[in-house]
């Protein structure tokens, strides 16, 4: 990563954990997961609590759908690491790679439900333009999305607008597709609070 403290500044306990994970999984811990171990009291711990709530907490959206929102927001922010990481989680949760790819290409044309499509388009506008209008939100409500689902989607959008910026500024290493698949399996099993 671009700051030396994020490569070599971890405490002994974290360094031991990184070594164990590498031995057990066969892959180095991805930079997204390493980052939250650096001075966790400052950013990692409160950020993980928010992200875990948004991505794995109670919601009218499935885990696959929320991971797809994360991948889509990441795509608009041109964050390669996060697109690959969360496409892999969404595809694994759906059991379908093509669906995720088609949404990232054009959510307007992809074979997804109307509520999910409308929500993705709203998140897209929010991410690109920084704002949405009450009318934009009404369009989403009109196709049957509940207000709590909108709150959930906005929370996913927030979490990934933060993470995308950190991934690209710190320059997270982009590993192989197999490493992302292994990471996806972990995130599906354990979530974001581990």
């Amino acid at each position, binding site marked *: 990563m*671009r*700051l*030396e*403290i*994020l490569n070599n*500044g971890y405490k002994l306990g974290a360094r031991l954990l990184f070594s164990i994970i590498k031995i057990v999984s066969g892959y180095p811990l991805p930079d997204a997961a390493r980052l939250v171990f*650096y*001075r966790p*009291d*400052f*950013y990692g711990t*409160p*950020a993980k*609590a*928010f992200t875990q*709530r*948004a991505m794995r*907490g109670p919601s009218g959206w499935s885990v696959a759908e929320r991971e797809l929102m994360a991948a889509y927001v990441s795509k608009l*922010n*041109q*964050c390669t690491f996060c697109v690959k990481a969360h496409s892999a989680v969404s595809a694994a949760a759906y059991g379908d790679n093509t669906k995720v790819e088609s949404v990232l290409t054009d959510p307007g044309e992809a074979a997804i439900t109307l509520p999910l499509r409308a929500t993705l388009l709203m998140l897209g506008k*929010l*991410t690109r333009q*920084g*704002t*949405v*209008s*009450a*009318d*934009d*939100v*009404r369009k989403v*409500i009109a196709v*049957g*999305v*509940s*207000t*709590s689902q*909108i*709150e959930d989607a*906005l*929370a996913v*959008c*927030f979490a990934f*607008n*933060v993470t*995308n*910026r*950190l*991934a*690209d*500024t*710190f*320059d997270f290493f982009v590993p192989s597709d197999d490493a992302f698949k292994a990471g996806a399996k972990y995130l599906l099993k354990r979530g974001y609070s581990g």
Partner: protein
Amino acid sequence: MDTVKDTSDYGALFQNLINRILKGDGYSTAGLRQAAFNNSDLPEPLHAFITKVANAAFKVTDGEVEAVKQSGVSEDEIFELIVCAAVGAASRQYENGLAALAEAMQEGGQHAS
């Protein structure tokens, strides 16, 4: 951050993150962290760098990070200011989204399922 009310559990989790990065202990001053969060009132080269983190992070280069280091800002300070800039930019969007939702609910979003 005022529009993120504690009507859902997100409000408390969001506020906790914001309070920690802006008001908790750090290597950089609270004033500088708030400036990075707001992306305003920063000296160069921090100003140009933080603007890029907030608006086009995928374009940040090694050289830009190096320039900030060369200007005498420590790595721990840079770490904090990058986090504040990223969270700040994302917060502004989030609050705009929540405000639009609140407005839609007030004015005839009643048929929400």
